[in-house]
Structures are given as C-alpha cells and as structure tokens.
C-alpha cells in the first residue's frame, strides 16, 4: 500500500484526468463505494473491497454478490474518510473516480475529483464555491419567480458590512489627539465626543467604499482565503448586499461624517479642520477608488499611515485647540505606523489574489524575509519615536510606559516567521498585531492621563 501521496488541490477545481497519485491516495481509504445507474434508472451504490494498481492505472474490484456492475456505462468509485469527534467529526476527505468496468474485476478511471480538508481547509473550500452558490440562487430565483438572496440578521449584517470592529483603529489616534490637547489645557467633552463619532463614520464610510471598489475590480472575488482580518467584508461577493446598496450605505456614512465635520468647523471656526477633513476623505477614498487607486500603485500602506496617523490625530487635536503643534505630529507617527502594520500583516494572506487583481501591496512585491524584516523595522521605529519624543522633550515621560509593548511586537514578528504561508493559522498573529496597536495606544493614553493628573496636582 502506498504511504506517500501527492498533494491534491480540490474545492471548485475542475475534475481532472486521474493520476498515479490519485490511485495511491485511493488505496489509503479503508473502504470503497462503487456506484452506477441501474437499468431501472435509479442509482445503486455498494461498498466493496478493492486493490489499486497505480502503475497500470486501474482498480481491481470485487463485484458485490448478486449484483452486476454494468460495463456499458460510466461507473463511479468513492473513497471517503471522516474521524468522529465529540459532537461532530473532522479529517474529512474523499476522492471520486469515474470510468469503466470491464466485467473482469478491473475498473479503469477516466476522471477524478476530490477534497481533503487537510490540504484545502474548509473555509477555503467554501470560498472557492461561492460562484456555485450565486449560480444556484440566481437559478432558484428564476424558478420561483422572486428574488432569493442569502441573508444575515440586521445586527450581523451591519457589523459585517461596515467592518465595525476595525473602529479601534480610529479610536486610538482620535483619543490620543484629544489627550494631547488636554495636556495643553484644551478640552471640551462634547466636541471630543463628536470628533470620535465623526471620525468613526468617516472610517466606516471608507471601509464600505473600499469594498465597493475591491468588488468591482475583482480583487475580493479572486480572494479564496479571506479571514476575519483580511479579504474585506465580502457582503457584495456573497450577494448579501448589492453594490447599489453599499453605495447608499457609503454615501450615508460620508454624509454623517461630513455633517459632524461641518458642525465642528462651525464651532471651532478652524479652516485647518476643513483641510484635514477633506484630506482624510480623499486619502481614504483614493485608497482603492479610481483614478488614484493608491493601493494598486504601491502606496496603500503609506496612505493608511497618513490617514490613521497625522490626519486622525491632528484632526482631533485641532478640534480642541484650533492649531497645529509638533507634539501631536510626532506622536501621530506611532498609531500611523502601527495601523499601517495592521494593514501590512493583513495583506499577507491576500497577497496572491491582490497580485491577480493588480493591487501592488508590499507583500505582493517583496519576499517573506523582506516583509518580516520590514515589519520589525517599522514596529521598532514606532517605539523609537516614543522614546525620542520623550528624550527630545516633546512628550511627557510617563508615555514611556508604552515601551512595555515591545515584546508583543516581537511576538508578532516571530509569528510571521512561522505562519506566513498559512492564512488560517496566521489569524492569531493578525489578532496579536491588532492588539499591539490597542496596547500601545492604551499605554500612551495612560501615560498622558497620568501626566494630566500630575499637572492638576501640581497646580
């Protein structure tokens, strides 16, 4: 019996001419099912014993007693395997062969198809099958005379469509901008709250806009290994929401963000804020939208660093103070870098589909070693900015507490070494990387709050 089998790619991959590897693989199944369509028009399937001959490309079958396997039509063989677990089963794999039986115990396969979840994880297999789901539901809609689409409950649909959990990326720079302003003696709670809400609307609007253009470009369709951190919302790919629907959602969110922005401009009278707001929207939309399509030109990471760094943090600072300053500008490099690193790591599992769609993200252009080294350099640079900001007298010394997150950055870097090529095991690393921004942001906030309290006590 064969002990080594060649990798088999499956999912929605078309059936192929059987190979010796297929027969070697079939030999590993403990039992085999032979099936055919009987003279009465019904399929018949019966378990039987078998031996494979990979060299000859045939399978010897013991015909079930009292039943004649036909020789004048196609016959199917199926080897399948599961491993029962508590509450379910795993280790699913199967291989199906079609061919002719010669009436003398020999089956000659002509086509093969199969799936092994150890080689094509279930989530990837499912994503590859999305076009089949769309075809089926379109046909079903025609048959029923009404539109039948997949659905989600409103709560989950909103969460998925807007990618709501990513709002932490907005919260960190906006809150930092607010506390830096507070150390400068400027703080109005309700404009701070409006800044946070307006920035969140803008972020969600940009998320939806990017999904629209990634769907239209085919980038999301081409991605068969999305994760909870990468691959976009996929609501349009799954037909949960139409492109028209997404457009209305994006316009609504942009409208809400603009309304809050204009209110803040009216309250503060700051024209600087107009410039920052417009720049933020332009960078966010131009990330995927034509004509600039920054991410397709290799500028996506820089766009995100600028958007979530200086624009968000300085915007929040200007709302409170009405002016620019060096401290928030320098500090903004930290969330800017760390949020760009979130994108950077999340681009790793998408790199093949991004390349197919023409998105020139850094992982599509550089080797894994360069990407890993790049991650470490940028992460350490973010910490260097904190240290330098304190040493240079721009930032208060309690913010040095953020350096406590260096080991987390090193852990993400180490994880990239191990899981670079496995989208699903990389998810834990992506999660840790998201946490890095939250932890550093949280510690910086804590450092500033300590500073504010200290200043209050001294006065």
């Amino acid at each position, binding site marked *: 019996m064969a002990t080594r089998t060649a990798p088999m790619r499956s999912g929605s991959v078309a059936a192929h001419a059987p190979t010796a590897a297929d027969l070697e693989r079939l030999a590993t199944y403990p039992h085999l099912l032979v099936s055919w369509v009987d003279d009465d028009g019904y*399929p018949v399937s019966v378990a039987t014993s078998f031996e494979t001959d990979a060299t000859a490309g045939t399978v010897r079958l013991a015909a079930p007693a009292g039943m004649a396997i036909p020789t004048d039509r196609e016959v199917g063989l199926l080897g399948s395997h599961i491993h029962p677990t508590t509450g379910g089963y795993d280790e699913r794999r199967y291989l199906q062969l079609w061919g002719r039986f010669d009436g003398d115990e020999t089956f000659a396969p002509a086509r093969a198809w199969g799936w092994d979840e150890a080689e094509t994880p279930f989530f990837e297999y499912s994503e590859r099958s999305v076009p089949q789901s769309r075809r089926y539901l379109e046909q*079903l809609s025609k048959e029923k005379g009404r539109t039948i689409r997949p659905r989600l409950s409103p709560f989950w649909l909103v969460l998925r469509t807007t990618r709501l959990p990513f709002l932490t990326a907005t919260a960190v720079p906006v809150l930092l901008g607010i506390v830096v302003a507070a150390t400068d003696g400027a703080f109005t709670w309700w404009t701070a709250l409006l800044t946070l809400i307006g920035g969140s609307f803008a972020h969600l609007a940009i998320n939806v806009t990017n999904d629209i253009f990634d769907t239209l470009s085919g980038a999301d369709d081409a991605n068969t290994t999305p994760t909870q951190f990468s691959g976009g919302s996929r609501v349009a790919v799954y037909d949960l929401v139409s492109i028209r629907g997404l457009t209305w959602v994006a316009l609504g969110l942009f409208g809400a963000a603009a309304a809050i922005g204009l209110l803040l401009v009216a309250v503060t009278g700051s024209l600087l804020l107009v410039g920052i707001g417009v720049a933020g929207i332009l960078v966010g939309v131009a990330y995927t939208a034509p004509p600039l399509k920054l991410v397709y030109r290799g500028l996506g990471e820089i766009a995100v660093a600028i958007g979530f760094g200086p624009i968000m943090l300085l915007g929040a600072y200007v709302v409170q103070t009405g002016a620019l300053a060096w401290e928030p500008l320098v500090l903004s490099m930290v969330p800017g870098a760390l949020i760009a690193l979130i994108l950077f790591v999340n681009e790793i599992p998408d790199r093949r589909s991004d390349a197919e769609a023409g998105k020139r993200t850094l992982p599509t252009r550089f080797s894994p070693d360069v990407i890993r080294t790049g991650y470490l350099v940028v992460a350490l640079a973010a910490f260097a900015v904190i240290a330098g900001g304190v040493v240079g007298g721009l930032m208060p010394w309690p913010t040095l507490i953020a350096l406590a997150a260096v080991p987390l950055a090193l852990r993400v870097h180490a994880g990239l070494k191990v899981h670079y090529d496995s989208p699903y095991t990389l998810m834990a690393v992506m999660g840790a990387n998201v946490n890095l921004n939250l932890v550093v942001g949280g510690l910086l906030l804590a450092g500033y709050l300590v500073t504010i309290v200290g200043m209050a006590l001294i006065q």
Partner: protein
Amino acid sequence: MGWLPDPVERLLDVALVGELTVIGRGGRPVTHPLIPLYHEGKIYLHSSTLFSKKLEHIKRDPRVSLSLSDPVATKGNLDRATIQGTARLIEDDPHSDWERLILGLWRQKEPMIDDFLKVRVALPLFFERAVIEITPERCLYWADGLTDRAPAETLAPRAEAA
C-alpha cells in the same frame, strides 16, 4: 413510521455520514458524503448552496440512492444498506426552512453545529441550505456488511404492490 427494516433504521439513526448518489450530467453517478437524518419514514439530507451541484442534479432527475457503509461513520455498526428512493427539494427559503425542518435532528447527531451557528456571520453562505427529502422505495441490506453475499431486498409497500 417507515417500512425500512429495523437494522436499517438503526443505521440511519446512528450514521454520521452516508453517501448520497445522484444522477449527474450524461447519466454519470455522482456520490456525495452527507449527514443523513431520519424521521417518520423519510430520510433528510441537506446541502449548502455553496455545494449545490447535487441539488441541480436532483432537479434534473430525482432518483437517488443512499449508502450506509462506513463502520467508522456508523459507530462500529458493521451492517450495510443501500436505500433507493425519490428526492424532493425543499428550497423555498434557503435561509431558514432547514432550521425549522431539520435543525433539531441535525443537532442530535452533530451537537457541534450549534457552535458553528453562533458564528453564522463568519460563513453566511454555508447556512443558506436546501433540504433533500428522500422517500425510500427500495432497500438492500447486508447483515454484518458482507457484500460478498446477496443483499436482503425490501420494497416500499406501494412499490411492492405495484
């Protein structure tokens, strides 16, 4: 209640996986491992719209067979059976028909499904499903799984009368 022999009903009750064979294009038999559910004489299988080619095959020709043959999937029960019948698709509302009709039966065999349902948002199309209801018409049964012996054949009462 159904007419299937008791040992076959027992197989249906315990089987984690059975092999559904449908008639594909050009009359080719196409076999899919699926979790079989059994209730009041009918066999229920279900399929995500993601993996719906089998449903398209059934629409063209509803004649199917279900094999229960893997002792690993039948908790060590060595008996084997093949049940032929006619399939009917229940697909008016792929989002929720299956929950109403077969989730309880599914949950009994695969309790882990509740964990997946909790994260339905992660894979929404997997839970857009059609139910395949099979009315058994003929049953072949091999005691102890010995297919080198001719099977015991049982026909549905109406089919037998005809």
